[in-house]
C-alpha cells in the first residue's frame, strides 16, 4: 500500500452508533474523509444521513464510537466547541434567525471566527473585516439585493441560499451541507453547484444530496448509507458500477 501524503484525515468516524430508545439508527459507521475531499453521502429517505450529520456536528450525542476532526477527538462535544474548531454546517430544514436581517444573519455567523466573541464594548458596525466578509458572502449567495430584509420574509429558495451563507460565513475548513439544493429550481441548483464548488476549494466538504446529477458532478467520493450502515464508499464511477448499490439504492431511485 502506498503511504498517503497526509495521513491524518479531516474527519475520521470509527464505529459510530446512535440509538433512539430501542431503535438503532446509525449502526457502526467507519469512514475516513481526507482533507480537501468533496464527499457526498447518498441514501434513501430515513437512512440516517441527517442523523449522521447531527452526530458529527455535536447536535446529537453518539451512543457509541468516535468522531475525530483533524485527529482530535470531538465525540460528544457541544456544537459551539466543534464549530470553533472549524467545522461548520447547514441544515436540511431551514434554520435561520428570522427577525434579523439577511445582513445580520450572515454577520452574526462571521463574528466568532473573526475573534469578536462576546465583545460588548466594540461597535459592530465598525468592524471592517466582518463587514467585508458579510458583503462578500451576500454577493456569492446572490442575496445582496435583499440585505436589509428580515430573513423570515424571504422566499424559500432565498432562505436556502442564506442557509448556505451562514454555513460558509465562518470560513470553516470542514463544511457539512445537508441537502443544500432541496426545493431549488434548475437554474438555482446550477448556481448553487458552482457556489459549492467554489467555497469547497481547499476545504473538506461533506454533503448530503439526492440529486444524482449534482452528486456525480461535484463529489470526489461517494458514500452510500442504507439503514444506518455505509454499504459502499468509493469514486463516482465505481459507485455507479457497484451492483449492491444499484440494488439497494440507485436501482430504486434512478431506473
Amino acid at each position, binding site marked *: 500500500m502506498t503511504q498517503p501524503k497526509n495521513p491524518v484525515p479531516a474527519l475520521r468516524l470509527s464505529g459510530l452508533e446512535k440509538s433512539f430508545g430501542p431503535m438503532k439508527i446509525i449502526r457502526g459507521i467507519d469512514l475516513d474523509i481526507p482533507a480537501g475531499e468533496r464527499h457526498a453521502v447518498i441514501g434513501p429517505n430515513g437512512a440516517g444521513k441527517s442523523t449522521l450529520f447531527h452526530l458529527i*456536528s*455535536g*447536535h446529537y450525542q453518539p451512543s457509541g464510537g468516535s468522531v475525530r476532526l483533524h485527529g482530535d477527538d470531538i465525540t460528544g462535544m*457541544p*456544537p*459551539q466547541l466543534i*464549530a*470553533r474548531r472549524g467545522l*461548520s*454546517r447547514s*441544515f436540511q430544514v431551514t*434554520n*435561520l*434567525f*428570522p*427577525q*434579523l436581517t439577511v*445582513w*445580520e444573519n450572515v*454577520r*452574526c*455567523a462571521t*463574528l*466568532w*471566527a473573526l475573534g*469578536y*466573541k*462576546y*465583545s*460588548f*464594548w*466594540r*461597535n*459592530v*458596525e*465598525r*468592524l*471592517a473585516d466582518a*463587514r467585508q466578509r458579510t*458583503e462578500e458572502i451576500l454577493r456569492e449567495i446572490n442575496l*445582496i*439585493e435583499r*440585505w*436589509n430584509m428580515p430573513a423570515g420574509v424571504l422566499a424559500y429558495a432565498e432562505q436556502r441560499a442564506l442557509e448556505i451563507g*451562514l454555513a460558509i*460565513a*465562518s470560513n470553516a475548513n470542514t463544511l457539512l451541507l445537508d441537502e443544500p439544493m432541496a426545493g431549488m429550481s434548475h437554474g438555482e441548483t446550477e448556481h448553487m453547484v458552482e457556489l459549492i464548488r467554489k467555497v469547497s476549494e481547499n476545504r473538506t466538504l461533506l454533503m448530503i444530496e439526492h440529486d444524482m446529477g449534482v452528486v456525480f458532478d461535484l463529489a470526489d467520493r461517494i458514500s452510500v448509507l442504507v439503514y444506518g450502515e455505509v454499504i459502499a464508499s468509493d469514486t463516482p464511477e465505481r459507485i455507479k458500477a457497484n451492483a449492491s448499490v444499484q440494488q439497494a439504492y440507485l436501482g430504486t431511485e434512478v431506473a
Partner: protein
Amino acid sequence: MSQKTDMKIPALPSGARESFLARFGIWIVAAIVLAGLPYVFSSGLSVSTMCMMGTMIIFALSYNMLLGQTGLLSFGHAVFFGLGGFLTAWAMNAVVGTASPVPLFLFPIMGGFTGLVFGIILGAVSTKRSGTAFAMITLGIAELVSSSALILRHFFGGEEGITLDRTDMVQVFGLSFGPQIQVYYLIAVWCLISVAAMYAITCTPFGRICNAVRDNPERVRFIGYNTQTVRFMAFSLSGLFAGIGGGLAAINFEIMNSAQMGVGESGAVILMTYIGGIGNFAGPIIGAVVVTYLQLMLSDVTDVWQLYFGLLFIGMVMYAPRGLAGLLALQQPLLQTRQFHRVAPYYVLALLPGLVAITGLSMVIEMTYQLAVKTAAGPAMAFFYVPFNANSPLPWIIAVILFAVGTWLFLRAARLAGDAYSEALAWRKLP
C-alpha cells in the same frame, strides 16, 4: 446603468464613521430635552413624577435587555432593582457620620454594583436553563428574595423599610439635593448615561448575538456561541442597570421597602416594557413614561386602577403585540412619504367611539366597585362629577349601551382605519 443597480440595492452599510452630529445628535437632543423639561412641567408634582419616570425608564430598558433583546422572560427582575436600592440605602447610611467625602451622585454606582453581583450569582443558576424553565426559576428567585426580606428584618427593615437622608452626604458644587429639582437632574444624568450605555450594548457583537439567541438559540450554537454564556451575560448586565435604577429610586424616595423587590414590582416592569413595545429600543422608554403617568393619574381618580392596567395590558397583548412603539413605527413609512394626513382622520374617527366604549366599561367597573366593596358608602356615587344612584337600573343601562355601541363603532372605524392605512401605504409604491 449604475443608476439602476443603485435603485435595486439599498445602500449597503458603509461602516464609515458617521459625522459627529449623526453619532451624538440624538443624545445631545435628549440631554437638552431632559434639561428643559422642568421648565415646561415645573410644578412639584410634575417634577417628582418625572423623577419616577427616569428611574422606571432605566428599569424597563434593563428588563428589555432580557425580554426583547435576548428572548428571556423573567418574573424576578425587581430583585435587582430592590437589592440595588437597599444596598445604596445602606451604603449611604454607613457613610453618614464617617465624614467620608463620597458625594451623593456617585451612590447609584453602589446600586449598579449590587445588581451586577447578584445578577452574576443568581444568573449562574437561572440561565442554565432557557424558556419556561428559566421563567420558573426567576419566579422562584423572586419569591426567595421576598421571603428572605421577611426573615432578615434588620437588613430590609420589615414593613417600614429602610430610610435614608440624601441631604446628609457631602455637598459638592453647593448641591444639597434637598430640593426635588436637584434630584431630578441627578436622575436625568444617570438616566441619560444608562440609556446610552444600554443602547451602545445593542450595537455590539454581544448585542447582536443576543438577538440571534432570541430568534433561534439552537442555531447560535452552530456559529460558535454558547447560548448559556450569552444568557448569563445578558442577565448580569441587565441586573447592573436595574440596580442603578433601584439606587436612584432609593435616593428619590429616601426609603426602600421590601415590596419594591417583590413579584408585584416584577410584574409591573413586564407590563411597562410590554405596553411600550419590546421589539424596539425606545419601546420600554415610552412604556415607562406612559405607565408611570397613568399609574399616578389613575390611582388618584379610582381605587381599582390596577384593574384598568390589567385591561390595558390584555388589550395591548391581543391587538397591538408590538406595543405603543410598534404602533408608532407603523406610521413611519406614511410620514416619510407624507401620506399620514390620509389616515389621521380615520384614527380620530376610531378614537372617539373607543373613548365612549371605555367610558361605558369604566362606569360598570366603578358601579360594581361601589356596590360590592364600598358598601358602607351606599349606592350614591359620582362618575365624571355626575352624581347618580348605582342601585337604579338607568345608569347600568346607559353604561351597557355606551360600551356596546362604542365597541361596535370602534371596531367598524378600526377596520376603516386599517383599510386607509393599507391604501396610504400602497400609494407610496406607485410610480
